[in-house]
């Protein structure tokens, strides 16, 4: 079946960037905030110069040999949903927004745990958004457990797989425990991916490097999300930023493999152009997308599953810019064959989520998936006989021909919210208003895939423990 696709680098170009990144790792090296983490790499054969760990090529090559090329990915209830490494195209809401934009508002506000639950209920019903994410950082929960509490409403109300992450070393183990009570083999048949971000240029914080280690030990997939800021924390040149990005991701892959050979790791990223006038981090700038396209091909060159932050917008409102940025970045990411695409719902430099935008982005994801599905080339589909018959005997009208009905549903994707009505049937509402009506309806209907009561009791036990540690009574939503 022919399918559209997009490659950017030739094999030779990929090899050149890869070699330069290896050069960076062996000569400039990486700084680890945590000396114990640095020691793990030093014990594995890296060397130290000042506060930097120089990683020789042999260690990187060995790590790459040991990294799984494919990862089977499941939902909460144990059903396999995709294989990462096979252009899985898993759209999920852009994660960890610190604000939510209400319908009609121009100023976003701090979200609550209740808002996160509502977002989860909406996403659960959006067909083309394949996974949940810990999309909002709830401001009404104790700061020291704000990463882990986000997992609770997802596990409780959604069957979809989850893209998440920890902000602390300590809470990661609680999050893993929550997964385990939900499904005993949650680590062996994973339904979660944890993001871990290096700090550009070429350094790792204590928390994120520890997360990589703990995830590797547990065998839970981690996503190394490098975030070069073009013109600020990385070179302003596209290939320079991509080379730095590549070196950072490789350092994360090495760390995971040194700790636990064969640990599942995804090659991720969230490049951003620092706006030359305002200093704002533009995720959807053409330059940022080009960096993602480059590292997508580097991941392909190394046969690693891949992730990006696309299918989102830097706009402040759900407006023309939001729709345009969403659509072209989602399509470009899908054409490039990313396995995991984080972004839907997001606005304003990865800081704001909107429920209405999620509904609209779901439309974009559906359209993108349709384009990516391509088309069949069977004799029946080429339809020579149908054309001949219709032209010569049926007056040129294909509508009543049985072939049309036979293929219509298979071939044609009909968007739900996009306006395609004739003016006579038009509701005189914008798609933004339509999206709000859908959000309202979904929230009225409430959750549909709640966790079974006995498992919920177990989950509540771990959840309660988490809150007690923060000295509070648990907040249930």
């Amino acid at each position, binding site marked *: 079946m022919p399918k559209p696709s997009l490659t950017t680098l030739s094999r030779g170009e990929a090899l050149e960037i890869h070699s330069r990144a290896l050069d960076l790792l062996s000569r400039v090296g990486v700084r680890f905030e945590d000396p114990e983490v640095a020691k793990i790499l030093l014990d594995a054969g890296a060397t130290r110069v000042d506060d930097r760990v120089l990683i020789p090529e042999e260690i990187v090559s060995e790590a790459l040999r040991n990294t799984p090329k494919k990862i089977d990915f499941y939902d909460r209830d144990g059903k396999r949903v995709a294989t990462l490494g096979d252009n899985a195209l898993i759209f999920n809401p852009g994660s960890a927004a610190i604000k939510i934009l209400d319908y009609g508002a121009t100023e976003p506000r701090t979200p609550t745990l209740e808002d996160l639950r509502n977002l989860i209920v909406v996403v659960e019903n959006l067909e083309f958004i394949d996974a949940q994410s810990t999309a909002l950082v709830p401001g009404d929960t104790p700061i020291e457990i704000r990463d882990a509490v986000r997992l609770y409403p997802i596990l409780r109300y959604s069957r979809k797989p989850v893209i998440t992450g920890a902000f602390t070393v300590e809470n990661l183990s609680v999050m893993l425990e929550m997964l385990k009570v939900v499904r005993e083999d949650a680590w062996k048949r994973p339904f979660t991916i944890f993001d871990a971000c290096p700090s550009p240029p070429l350094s790792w914080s204590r928390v994120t490097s520890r997360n990589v280690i703990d995830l590797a030990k547990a065998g839970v997939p981690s996503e190394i999300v490098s975030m070069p800021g073009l*013109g600020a924390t990385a070179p302003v040149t596209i290939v320079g930023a991509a080379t730095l990005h590549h070196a950072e991701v490789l350092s994360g892959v090495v760390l995971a493999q040194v700790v636990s050979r064969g640990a599942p790791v995804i090659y991720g990223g969230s490049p951003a152009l*620092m706006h*030359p*006038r*305002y*200093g704002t981090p533009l995720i959807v700038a053409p330059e940022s997308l080009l960096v993602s396209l480059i590292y997508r091909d580097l991941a392909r060159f190394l046969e690693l599953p891949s992730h990006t932050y696309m299918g989102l917008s830097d706009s402040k409102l759900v407006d023309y810019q939001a729709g345009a940025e969403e659509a072209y970045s989602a399509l470009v990411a899908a054409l490039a064959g990313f396995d995991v695409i984080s972004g839907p719902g997001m606005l304003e430099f990865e800081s704001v989520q909107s429920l209405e935008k999620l509904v609209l982005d779901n439309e974009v994801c559906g359209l993108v998936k349709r384009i990516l599905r391509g088309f069949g080339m069977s004799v029946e589909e080429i339809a020579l006989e149908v054309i001949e018959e219709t032209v010569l005997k049926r007056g040129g009208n294909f509508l009543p021909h049985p072939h049309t009905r036979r293929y219509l549903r298979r071939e044609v994707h009909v968007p739900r919210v996009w306006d395609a009505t004739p003016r006579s049937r038009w509701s005189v509402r914008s798609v933004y208003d339509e999206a709000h009506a859908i959000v309202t309806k979904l929230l009225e209907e409430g959750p549909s895939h709640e966790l079974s009561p006995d498992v919920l009791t177990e989950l509540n036990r771990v959840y309660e423990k988490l809150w007690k540690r923060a000295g509070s009574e648990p907040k249930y939503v």
Partner: protein
Amino acid sequence: MLVEDLKRGLYSAVIEGDSEKALGYARELLNTGLDVKQVITDVLAPAMRVVGDMYERGEYFIADLIASAEAFKQVFDNILKPRLTSSTISKGVVAVFGTVRGDIHELGKNIAKALFEAEGFEVIDLGVDVSPERFAEVVESRKARIVGLSALMTTTMIEQEKVIEELKRRGLRESVIVIVGGAPVTEDWVRKIGADMCGDDAFKALKKVKELLGAV
């Protein structure tokens, strides 16, 4: 080279953000016997104003601003500052400078800061987007005698008045000299909001501050 040519050279070098060239011209300018203060008022301050304007018009980016600010700093620190004589009157006197809330322009504030430091004042730089409460807090805790409020936009100028109100509310207004600066600030505005002086010409402001301190 004639003095005028050297001035033009320094002016362009600062605008272009070429530190090395700027240092060369500045050195030669002082060799001609030109006064340090004139180098600042006639050349550096106008050059930085142009840089600010170019940024506002979208011709200059942050990277350009940084290069120009660096050229200014290099010339000031290496060539001008060593020749400025600090007065005894400024010794141990704390001056608090900042750009008011809602405003992130700091070129003007930084020029004033450099001059006051060179004069021997202890300058506390609060940076940009500073709230009235923060200004007042630091004035109070550090027992500042001078506070400089910079605002580049007419929309943020109003914040200067709010700082003065906050100082009054805490009973600090009488113990501190208030300088308001920035492109839209006029003598009328200074009178209207009850500030002490306009900082459009940093040297004039400096002179007046010293007079006031001497008089106290």
